[in-house]
């Protein structure tokens, strides 16, 4: 394949692909060693290296673009909320719809232009416009609902926004609409579960079942395109599992007023089906992730359903201490697993998420314990010490875990 590179001369001048300075440094070292081994000649080595340039993956320009498109999208939804009565409702909906369609068409034209120039069809500009289009679709839904006097605080509207944004994300295979779609769908799901039946167990189950679904989808994306979406689903799954277990470990959260509503039941069935599918079709050991998330969901449900002396109105007893100890053990185990996954998948965000979750969890639990015996300024001093101490311990644990795993993998 490398030998073919000389024969296929590019018909148009190639533009340089931006890669991180670290990646370019690694590639340069590799190409030099190929050259030394005689796998490529000097000209081919120069041709390979000449295709790339060093650049920040998330530079200021990209940040401004995404911020700008987020401002436009949020501004559009705000415009809907400001209910401009100078224009009739239908005209308002038509204007918002025209802006949404303009963004969809604009993103398509920009990506086609890049394809014509033989560039990858995604770029920060295209991504930002697509993200704006996904946000603008929310404005279309909300304006339609407002124009037709759909009652306020209807969670289904956010759900339809999420579904539309996800549809768009998969149609154009773009990360920005995926982020919007996943976020809106998540907000809808938790809100809908709470609206159907307000209970602590309902909230915990919503987060944990959502975590199982996201983990399973991330595994399936390792086999099915777009493979890049696996990262977003994996990180969302980890976040949901950590939040769900955190809420489950809060002593005052119990199973009172819980009802297995239709939304929750369907979500549980979908989660189990997707976990089975991921187990059957997954490529490597990560196919066990959804099963792990399911196990965490069971533990979380058990912790909430466990009626200790304090919950039933008595004083703090042995059951409460045992529940607290098990909560801490389960959380440390799950956060450790997420941190290890981050290292295995080379995803620093996942590792830092796990560590941040551990520190916040430890501090929260300490707060629950120390606030019983210390008050005022000393409480802050003690909590600060716990915060700093657990941060240092976990950061050291992360580095050791990283070096152990790297040693075993190599």
């Amino acid at each position, binding site marked *: 394949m490398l030998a073919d590179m000389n024969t296929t001369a590019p018909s148009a001048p190639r533009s340089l692909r931006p890669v991180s300075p670290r990646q370019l440094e690694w590639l340069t070292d590799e190409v030099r060693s190929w050259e030394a081994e005689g796998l490529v000649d000097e000209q081919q080595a120069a041709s390979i290296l000449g295709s790339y340039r060093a650049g920040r993956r998330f530079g200021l320009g990209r940040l401004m673009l995404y911020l700008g498109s987020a401002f436009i999208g949020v501004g559009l*939804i705000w415009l*809907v*909320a*400001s*209910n*401009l*009565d100078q224009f009739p409702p239908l005209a308002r909906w038509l204007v918002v719809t025209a802006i949404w*369609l303009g963004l*969809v068409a604009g993103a*398509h034209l920009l990506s*086609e232009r890049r394809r014509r120039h033989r560039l990858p069809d995604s770029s920060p500009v295209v991504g930002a416009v697509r993200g704006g289009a996904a946000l603008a*679709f*929310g404005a*279309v*839904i*909300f304006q*339609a*609902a*407002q124009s*037709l*006097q*759909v*009652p*306020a*605080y209807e969670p*289904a*509207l*956010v759900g*339809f926004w999420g*579904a*539309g944004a996800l*549809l*768009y994300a998969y*149609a*154009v295979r773009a990360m920005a609409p995926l982020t919007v779609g996943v976020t809106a769908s998540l907000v809808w799901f938790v809100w809908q579960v709470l*609206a*159907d*039946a307000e209970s602590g167990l309902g909230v915990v189950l919503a987060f944990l079942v959502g975590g199982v679904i996201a983990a399973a989808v991330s595994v399936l994306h390792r086999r099915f395109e777009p493979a890049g979406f696996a990262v977003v689903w994996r990180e969302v799954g980890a976040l949901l599992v950590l939040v769900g277990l955190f809420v489950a470990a809060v002593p005052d959260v119990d199973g009172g007023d819980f*009802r297995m*509503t239709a939304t929750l039941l369907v979500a549980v069935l979908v989660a189990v089906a997707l976990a089975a599918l991921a187990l059957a079709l997954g490529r490597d050991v990560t196919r066990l992730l959804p099963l792990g998330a399911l196990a965490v969901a069971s533990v979380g449900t058990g912790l909430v359903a466990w009626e200790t002396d304090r919950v039933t109105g008595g004083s703090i007893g042995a059951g409460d201490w045992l529940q607290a100890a098990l909560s801490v053990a389960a959380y440390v185990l799950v956060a450790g697993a997420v941190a290890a996954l981050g290292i295995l998948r080379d995803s620093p965000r996942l590792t830092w998420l796990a560590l941040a979750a551990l520190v916040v969890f430890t501090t929260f639990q300490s707060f629950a314990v120390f606030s019983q015996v210390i008050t005022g300024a000393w409480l802050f001093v003690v909590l600060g010490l716990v915060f700093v101490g657990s941060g240092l311990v976990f950061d050291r644990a992360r580095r050791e875990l990283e070096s152990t795993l790297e040693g075993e993998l190599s």
Partner: protein
Amino acid sequence: MNRIAVLGACVVAQLALVGLATYDQLSARAFGEEYRFLVQPVDPHDPFRGSYVDLDYPDLRDPDGSVPASFEDGDQGPLYIPLVRDGDLWVRGEYTRTRPDEGPYLACDDGDWRIRCGIESWFASASEARRVERELAGDGAVATVRIDGRGNAALVDLSSR
């Protein structure tokens, strides 16, 4: 061409989602008939859609019951309110959990803390919402609602009594 077809199909599906999100109101407006109810304001602001007036329908709830209306029968979910004419206006018959064989009736839901029939909010600009609320708090007003054969309802107008 293939990419345009996929994008086109996606946009059509998204527009269908807009229709689905507002199906009850669209159906009521397109195929429903008009009914008039006495209406009073309860109180607000939806973060996504702005100012609105939250409405209570005195003739659709139990006179001794909670405001806004709720139904305590130990069950939650779909609820139907048969409608009976009372002069120019319409009032409620007996609440029922099974869909009436014939109309007119309102298809509602009390899975939430209150009975919701899709006609509880009147969206307007902040100043207009305040004016409507003041007006309704005085003598009350009459809501014109379109209701289709399945009980789907859409609020189309508010006017003074």
